[in-house]
């Protein structure tokens, strides 16, 4: 006669639909817990290299990056950082770990890596063309050349790098850093055909390549068709063209008063470059509200720090021309109105248009793809927006030998996406040459290894720092503005890098639960600093989420559900804000909890080689 109200009876036992026990052998479950790595298009093992930085193993940290994202030095300065908004630390305190800056630390302090470069296999007789020498093409070249492919890289410019060279100003990315990482790849026996503008894909295909990779980016900046456009003449510039002209030394001056149109990262580069070329009164004028500007928050901050004024909710009306000369622009003031579908419209406030005087206008309102050089009768289909039809997994076009990647594939993104595309295209090209089905993608290399060293010792540092995010030091403003090549961000020194690295929560060290060992003593529930462990009856997920110790309201984060325990309950852990401190495992008397490091290395073309 058990009258225990807490004991499940046949009536109170959960009935379907309840949650199934989590399958931790599914490589995605724990990978998703590593928010930064999951968010990174190239799936760089971020916590792994941050720990190496804390151990001053900069070379190792650089190589982890180089394997996965190819351009650690470049990306450590210019990455769009999808990892940082995803960082768990940002949900626990105010700001994420400065992942990008730490990546740069690995590049800045690393030692010699020549001996760590892959061995180049003897030529396999296959020839691959990469059109455009930007990040996507160079990634394809890096992945394929060591396997024995003869890779030919074409570019209209005199050197490799693509938009990393032509669009990113030197004060954000020093030339030496870029050159080194580009040269390293070109040294893998790549044949370069620079200063060569491809005018026909057909001619390239006629050269009998085994595959052609198109990584030509989104090279055309949008123009602005408003009254007066035809009379502004040389005082109107398309942003990316102007940045390229500055990068290659053709432009070294701009007027005192500059208006930059647009709110993306190109606009930020334009205004900051103007400040260095004689622009005194530089305004960024953007149609949308400040909050929805496309530029990365840190780039907006950097521009504002250099006294660039940003005006939002202003729609350009016309160029004002006096005596055949540009004297300024008129803008309509607008406010965002949302219709019942939540769609935003910018509606005029009805106020008088505003006039802003200027000497030059830089137009950075977007960029587009442009494929006039691809013949439409070679079996390569074009779809909506005059974009080539490209498979999202294999990156193959409808022409069996032609692959696309980077901005050329699906429109403007950023460097890290281009790298990710490059890896996938390289896998496809390799599989095509080896006669393997392109849809049969290679598995990532995944290991899950216990970190237990002793009773309460782990092979990772679980005593994380409580410090807020560290600021990176900047060059003195006056000096920075007087030298277009002087890098503004100075990067962390070793001490700052260590302090910042210790903020990382080690989200790759997973809490692994073994149901059979658990005696339901509650020790883990009691010690968990963020109340994420529960022992409760199973049920429907939406309902269970509401009834946990702290309701699990972040639906993007999974629940980790155990098998049924002797009391009929299950262990449910909300992965959302777990600190990965390992205290659950330290307090567990039966080692039902263990801390195990997930190392997830995304598949590359060479993985297929190893598997064969």
């Amino acid at each position, binding site marked *: 006669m058990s009258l225990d109200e807490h004991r499940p009876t046949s009536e109170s036992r959960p009935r379907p639909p309840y949650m199934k026990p989590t399958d931790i052998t599914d490589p995605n479950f724990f990978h998703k817990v590593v928010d930064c790595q999951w968010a990174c298009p190239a799936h760089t093992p971020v916590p792994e290299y941050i720990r190496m930085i804390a151990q001053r193993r900069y070379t190792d940290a650089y190589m982890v990056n180089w394997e996965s994202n190819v351009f650690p030095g470049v990306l450590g300065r210019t990455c769009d950082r999808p990892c940082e908004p995803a960082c768990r630390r940002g949900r626990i305190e105010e700001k994420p770990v400065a992942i990008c800056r730490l990546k740069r630390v690995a590049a800045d302090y690393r030692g010699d890596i020549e001996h760590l470069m892959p061995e180049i296999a003897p030529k396999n007789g296959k020839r691959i063309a990469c059109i455009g020498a930007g990040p996507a093409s160079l990634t394809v070249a890096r992945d394929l050349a060591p396997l024995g492919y003869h890779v030919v890289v074409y570019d209209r410019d005199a050197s490799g790098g693509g938009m990393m060279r032509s669009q990113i100003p030197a004060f954000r990315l020093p030339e030496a850093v870029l050159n080194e990482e580009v040269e390293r790849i070109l040294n893998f026996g790549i044949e370069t055909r620079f200063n060569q503008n491809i005018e026909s894909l057909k001619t390239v295909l006629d050269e009998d390549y085994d595959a052609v990779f198109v990584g030509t980016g989104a090279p055309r900046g949008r123009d602005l068709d408003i009254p007066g456009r035809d009379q502004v003449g040389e005082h109107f510039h398309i942003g990316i063209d102007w940045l390229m002209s500055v990068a290659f030394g053709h432009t070294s001056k701009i007027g005192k008063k500059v208006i930059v149109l647009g709110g993306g990262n190109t606009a930020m580069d334009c205004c900051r470059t103007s400040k260095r070329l004689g622009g005194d009164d530089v305004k960024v004028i953007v149609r949308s509200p400040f909050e929805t500007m496309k530029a990365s928050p840190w780039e907006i901050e950097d521009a504002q720090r250099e006294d660039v004024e940003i005006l939002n909710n202003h729609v350009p009306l016309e160029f004002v021309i006096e005596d055949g000369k540009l004297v300024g622009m008129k803008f309509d003031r607008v406010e965002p109105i949302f219709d019942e579908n939540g769609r935003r419209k910018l509606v005029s406030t009805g106020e008088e248009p505003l006039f802003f005087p200027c000497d030059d206008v830089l137009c950075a309102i977007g960029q587009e793809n442009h494929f006039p050089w691809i013949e439409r009768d070679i079996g390569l289909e074009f779809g909506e927006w005059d974009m080539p039809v490209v498979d999202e997994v294999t990156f193959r076009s409808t022409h069996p030998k032609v692959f696309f990647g980077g901005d050329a594939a699906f429109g403007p993104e950023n460097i890290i996406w281009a790298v990710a595309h490059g890896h996938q295209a390289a896998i496809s090209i390799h599989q095509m040459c080896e006669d393997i089905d392109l849809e049969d993608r290679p598995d990532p290399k995944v290991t899950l290894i216990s970190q237990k060293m002793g009773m309460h010792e782990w092979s990772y540092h679980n005593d994380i720092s409580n410090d807020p995010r560290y600021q990176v030091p900047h060059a003195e403003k006056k000096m920075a503005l007087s030298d277009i090549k002087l890098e503004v961000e100075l990067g962390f020194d070793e001490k700052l890098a260590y302090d910042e690295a210790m903020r990382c929560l080690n989200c790759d060290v997973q809490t692994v639960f073994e149901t059979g060992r658990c005696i339901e003593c509650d020790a883990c529930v009691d010690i968990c*600093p963020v*109340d994420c462990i529960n022992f409760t009856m199973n049920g429907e997920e939406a309902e269970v989420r509401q009834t946990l110790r702290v309701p699990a309201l972040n639906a993007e984060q999974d629940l980790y559900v155990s098998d049924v325990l002797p009391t009929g309950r299950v262990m449910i852990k909300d992965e959302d804000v777990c600190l990965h401190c390992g205290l659950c495992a330290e307090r567990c008397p039966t080692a039902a909890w263990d801390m195990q490091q997930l190392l997830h290395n995304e598949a590359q073309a060479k993985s297929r080689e190893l598997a064969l």
Partner: protein
Amino acid sequence: MTYIAKPKFHHPNLPRNDLGLTRRDYEGSMSTLCAGCGHDSVTAAIVEACFELNLPAHKVAKMSGIGCSSKTPTYFLSKSHGFNSVHGRMPSVATGANLANNELKYIGVSGDGDTASIGFGQFAHAVRRQVDMLYVVENNGTYGLTKGQFSATNDRVSVGRKGQVNAFESIDLVSIAIQLGASFVARGFSGDKDQLVPLMKAALSHKGFAFIDVISPCVTFNNHGGSTKSFEFVRDHEHTVTGADYVPHRDEITADYAEGSVLDVTLHDESRVRLRKLDATYDPSDRAAALQYMMEHQAKDEVVTGLLYLNTGDDELKEKMDVTAAPLNSLGAAELRPDMATLEKINAGLR
């Protein structure tokens, strides 16, 4: 024991009580007990109860003696008052503190050794004097701090880790407490906080001696197959006689229960305990019947849990002694020094 301090970070959505505090604000320093110790769960239950009762930490005094259990006040309410006495002498210190200042809530934490062996006499007198406090015994039937000898509460049928037989009769602290006149007697289990936390909240709201015997398994020495104080044994033999819900005075009672199955008892601070009688024959206000019930079920190897005895009609120590209700440290010269006429009267009475 864990070497690192518990990280300061807490869940961003952690609930706050009326004082604006989270349950993390009621914690103490890091426990140095064995991993999985039941005592740490009792600590967590105290933390939860104080949090939910909106107790200001500076209005609480933690009292303890010696033993694994007596270490635990360090692990909760780090901003409270406290006294860690010599072995078994916590009841005297608590009695004195109570007389000096009854405006504090007294939480005494003791173990089976501290209460049923070296401090048994002290315990008996705190009970019969109705000292106004919550007295928790973290009962694991073993002397864990001296490597696992049988304690006085270890059941006769319970063998040692290596099969040693227990030759002596065990002391049932719940029966003793009921017999000696404790006005609130309960038994809980460290592995069941759903039951333990409401018991603690009710006990903290009760005026008089509130005793909770918490079966708290010793994972190192007494959580094996032959033990009657193991997680597994208690889960298999637990017999919950009353479910007790704590109802803060301002809350409406909304749940529906079958007639006669529920007993509402109003406590001294106007809050209520709602007793759900899981055994309809049980009467938690009848001392003799309660004692008999304990003995009968004990004979069947059952561990009776729940709120077992409740008497809200008895005075607590200070009322019994008819001394001033005000804390002694608040009394000024006027209250402490008798005037001439009173002094004359006292002197005359002594002649």
